[in-house]
């Protein structure tokens, strides 16, 4: 019973922080664009409004896919240590986390394929291609860290960086951090790697047929993905944290970097994005790997 | 080799065209529809390479349409209005899409708004209007005000809704 409650609380927390980040992110972007921007709680209002609206479903697969997308990410979250707490105390294995993350996208793909809109289909095929693009450099980075620490447990990797700031992997392996940052940008689907959404090209891609609750679910999925992905980076490179507050602060720093890049870059075409991801971050990551091995 | 406007007028008069001198760099040229294509090819060969656009005027009192080709020369800096008169009851003009590609759309437009046929142009489908069943709208005998009042309940003084 406690375990269920715990899982539930973790989920609520992730959604809350994710939405807060999204709201603040919109405000930050607005300030970069020299405007006032929406209030920081706007994301909460949006989601609340979307769930209050009538929504149009196409078939059962669409419902299932949307739930699967959110569920997959929430499941990932359960294995990510947050300031020393893990929702499910079994394993914090990095490989498992990375595989679980893919479920979210597959769920989205299912929902979208069910809607039958060509824009959405192009969008989701781009999202899956992009996944192919960023996973290779990210796994290379992870491989280096696993070799150094001799473990694939995220918890142990983050604990190994305890103590002073100089112990952080970010300082010890700056190249790996840069490669991971670039991959993270693609993971979150922020510019320049937002080809799957691209309103000017394919009218917001996977989301094109989503209305009301479905769009709300897509919002929540995005919020949880922000939370999970920044949490992984914080654990890998910034040594986790001793309390939740510091942890969220560190996550926010990572998110801010993403937002700044998002605000001043246009988007790559999908083939350019994959080409970029398979050359620059991989190059950096392999260089780091060689440095570690030699 | 830049020619003055007076030289061009002289050249055209020598070839037997009826030329009207309009402004400091504008000439109007009336041609017959049988010769239209040849005349345009000739003009293009002496440097009139830019087709601005094609339009038409409905001279309802004279029972004729006038198709006007606006041609500009970047070398001579002279604008020529090449005019063709056709009978209003049987308006047919040879197409010039082989000379200028963009003429395709101007011809479609003129066909749609005046009902003038362009011989040799196979695609004169309507470009702007959908489901149009009245007479072509830019003809002088089409009353757009009456049309609007009948179809859309337009009110003459803006109404008081």
């Amino acid at each position, binding site marked *: 019973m406690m375990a269920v409650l715990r899982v539930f609380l973790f989920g609520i927390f992730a959604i809350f922080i994710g939405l807060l980040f999204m709201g603040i992110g919109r405000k930050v972007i607005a300030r970069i664009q020299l405007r006032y921007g929406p209030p920081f709680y706007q994301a909460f209002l949006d989601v609340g409004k979307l769930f209050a609206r009538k929504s149009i479903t196409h078939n059962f697969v669409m419902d299932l896919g949307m739930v699967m997308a959110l569920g997959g990410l929430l499941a990932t979250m359960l294995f990510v240590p947050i300031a020393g707490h893990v929702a499910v105390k079994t394993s914090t294995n990095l490989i498992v986390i990375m595989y679980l993350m893919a479920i979210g996208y597959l769920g989205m793909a299912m929902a979208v394929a069910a809607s039958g809109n060509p824009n959405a289909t192009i969008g989701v095929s781009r999202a899956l291609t992009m996944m192919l693009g960023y996973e290779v450099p990210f796994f290379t980075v992870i491989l280096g860290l696993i070799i150094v620490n001799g473990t694939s447990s995220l918890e142990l990797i983050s604990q190994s960086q305890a103590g002073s700031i100089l112990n952080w992997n970010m300082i010890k392996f700056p190249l790996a951090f840069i490669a991971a940052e670039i991959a993270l940008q693609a993971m979150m689907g922020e510019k320049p790697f937002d080809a799957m959404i691209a309103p000017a090209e394919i009218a917001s891609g996977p989301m094109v047929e989503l209305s009301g609750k479905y769009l709300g679910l897509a919002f929540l999925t995005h919020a949880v993905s922000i939370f999970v992905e920044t949490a992984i980076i914080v654990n890998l490179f910034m040594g986790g944290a001793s309390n939740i507050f510091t942890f969220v602060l560190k996550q926010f720093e990572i998110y801010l970097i993403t937002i700044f890049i998002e605000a001043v870059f246009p988007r790559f075409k999908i083939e350019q994005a994959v080409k970029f991801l398979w050359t620059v971050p991989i190059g950096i990551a392999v260089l780091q790997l060689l440095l570690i091995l030699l | 080799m830049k020619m003055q406007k007076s030289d061009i007028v002289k050249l055209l008069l020598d070839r037997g065209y009826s030329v009207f001198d309009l402004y400091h760099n504008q000439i109007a040229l009336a041609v017959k529809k049988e010769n239209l294509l040849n005349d345009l090819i000739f003009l293009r060969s002496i440097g009139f390479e830019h087709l601005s656009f094609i339009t038409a005027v409905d001279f309802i009192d004279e029972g004729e349409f006038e198709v006007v080709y606006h041609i500009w020369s970047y070398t001579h800096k002279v604008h020529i209005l090449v005019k063709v008169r056709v009978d209003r009851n049987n*308006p047919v003009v040879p197409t010039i899409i082989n000379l200028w590609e963009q003429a395709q759309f101007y011809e479609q437009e003129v066909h749609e708004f005046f009902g003038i046929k362009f011989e040799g142009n196979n695609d004169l489908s309507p470009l702007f*209007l959908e489901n149009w069943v009245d007479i072509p709208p830019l003809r002088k005998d089409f009353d757009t005000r009456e049309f609007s009042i009948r*179809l*859309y309940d337009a009110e003459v003084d803006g109404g008081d809704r």
Partner: protein
Amino acid sequence: MELPPAMTSRWDVERFGVGPMATPRQADVLLVTGYVSLKTLKRIIRTYEQMPEPKWVLAFGSCTVNGGIYWDSYNTITNLAEYIPVDITVSGCMPRPEAVIDALQTLMKMIQSGEAGAYKKYKENYEYYKANQDRVLKKTVPVLGQTPKNDLEGKDEDAKE
């Protein structure tokens, strides 16, 4: 056309939580910005019917109320409210960005107080709206009673839509 200024840095409607959405499925408010030609009307109706409820319509500019400066045009409708239910209209041609923001805020207040529910009217009076829509979109007889003398050839409707 005054919408971009209203959305961007100077007026920034996003501070009130209003932002553009990419597709009708995601939208709450349909902004009809200005005159509506027949071809557009067809798309507006389709867009409106695609939007999930509750939905609202903001008609923008005089042209949507009584035709504005285009009241006697053959291709623009005069009163949008005859075809889809309109919640709120902004006068002016073009309305200033301030007017747009004011309209959006008024609409928000109306929604909160429950005044804005025109979409219910659309359901209840569907026959009325449908009849009006069909009258202008699916006309088969010439409105002015004159039939085109020379039949327009190649008049193929894009039936696939």
